[in-house]
């Protein structure tokens, strides 16, 4: 049986319409580095939020509690920063630079060495190099002449090969997309229900993407596809789930 989640607008103590809990906490999370107008729920400007919080004790308490948590965690930190003195960082910098410059030197001398070896090899084998270069030039020339004189029919195998390659690429992309889709789908089911506020968070927006190993996915997929998935509507998500 399919259930439907019906959301009622929250009401503050004075009966005013309150923003969703997530919007309140998001507003409370914003720092000096954020542009509030870009970061907030499009239905609630930062000015409206400010006004609302000043007149709704319930939302104000929620925002305060959230902010307080963040401040306290920041103050406590996960380790004692005071244990690391100026002297510690001076030595750390020496270590870092020691590694950097020695690595740079070794890379440089290696490059020079390999260039010298290459040049010496070329000098030693110049006759052989000349023969290889001539052969390459001949192949290129014949190839060019052949292509120029060929009829459309004689080009068919080349076109077929190109189309085959394109087909392979498409199949690769499709399988990569499917693999990522399955990973996302598996992880998203655990994250989609926002249990505290009782509302559904945007399904793909809440996907826990860490399950997908970055090294297994190309950069293209790990950036663009996530954004694409964020844009999907409920019916499209349902369709995608069906296909996967």
């Amino acid at each position, binding site marked *: 049986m399919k259930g439907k989640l019906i959301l009622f607008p929250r009401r503050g103590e004075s009966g005013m319409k309150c923003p969703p809990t*997530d919007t309140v*906490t*998001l507003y409370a*999370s914003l*720092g*000096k*580095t*954020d*542009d509030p107008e870009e*970061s907030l729920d499009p239905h609630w400007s930062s000015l409206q939020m400010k006004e609302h919080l000043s007149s709704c004790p319930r939302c104000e308490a929620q925002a305060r*509690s*959230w902010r*307080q*948590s*963040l401040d*306290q*965690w*920041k103050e*406590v*930190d*996960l*380790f*004692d*920063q005071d244990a*690391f003195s100026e002297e510690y*960082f001076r030595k*750390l*910098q020496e*270590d*870092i*630079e020691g*590694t*950097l*410059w020695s*690595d*740079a030197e070794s*890379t440089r001398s290696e490059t020079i060495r390999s260039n010298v070896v290459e040049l010496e090899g070329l000098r030693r084998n110049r006759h052989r190099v000349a023969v290889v270069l001539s052969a390459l030039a001949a192949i290129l020339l014949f190839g060019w002449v052949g292509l120029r004189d060929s009829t459309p029919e004689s080009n068919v195998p080349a076109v077929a090969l190109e189309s085959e390659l394109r087909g392979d690429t498409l199949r690769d992309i499709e399988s990569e997309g499917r693999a990522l889709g399955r990973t996302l789908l598996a992880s998203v089911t655990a*994250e989609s229900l926002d249990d*505290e506020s009782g509302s559904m*968070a*945007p399904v793909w*927006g*809440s*996907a*826990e*993407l*860490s*399950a997908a190993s*970055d090294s297994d996915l190309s950069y293209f997929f*790990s*950036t663009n596809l*996530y*954004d694409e998935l*964020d844009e999907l509507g409920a019916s499209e998500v349902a369709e995608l789930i069906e296909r996967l």
Partner: protein
Amino acid sequence: MPSQRIDDELLRKIHAGDRTVFSSLVREHQRSVFFTAMRLSSGDEASARDIVQKAFLQAWTHREKFRGQASFKTWLLRITTNVAKNEQRRAWRRREFTPGEGTEEDFEPLTPEAETSFDVLASKRAREVLRDAVESLPQRQREIALLRIYEDLSFVEVAECCGTSANNAKVSFHHAVKKIRKFLAAKGLAA
């Protein structure tokens, strides 16, 4: 204030491999990089130092890939996060062959006298609870929460660091904070 972007002249010097410029960048950002590495490696100093060395080495080696579109700090923290992630994967693989680690000590409850309020987080034991809470998060949520809370990066910058969208960074951060609060509450610490 958002992190500062680098001007063209400085960018040119970085690309040219100017050691003086790079040294000053190391000096300026090593604390952020080291502290982020400490947080991402569960406070293990040796691992953090290793991550810092590798992160700066990668930044130096691939300096021509820095285009100055993000701030240098954001770029460095992105490298740091990736290096830490790789180190963690290696550690996990090693751990698979060394059973016996991570016993009941990891789940030891707080003593009753400590279960009073969030203020006790000032104590060493309570800091460990916060660390446990952060460690209980999925990797990406953890990275996003740590960069956001401790490095004061905007959501856009956090997204740049973690290779995701700003919207995803916001949602992940929201979930992370809720989970940490829940974890602390379960340990008797009012958040």
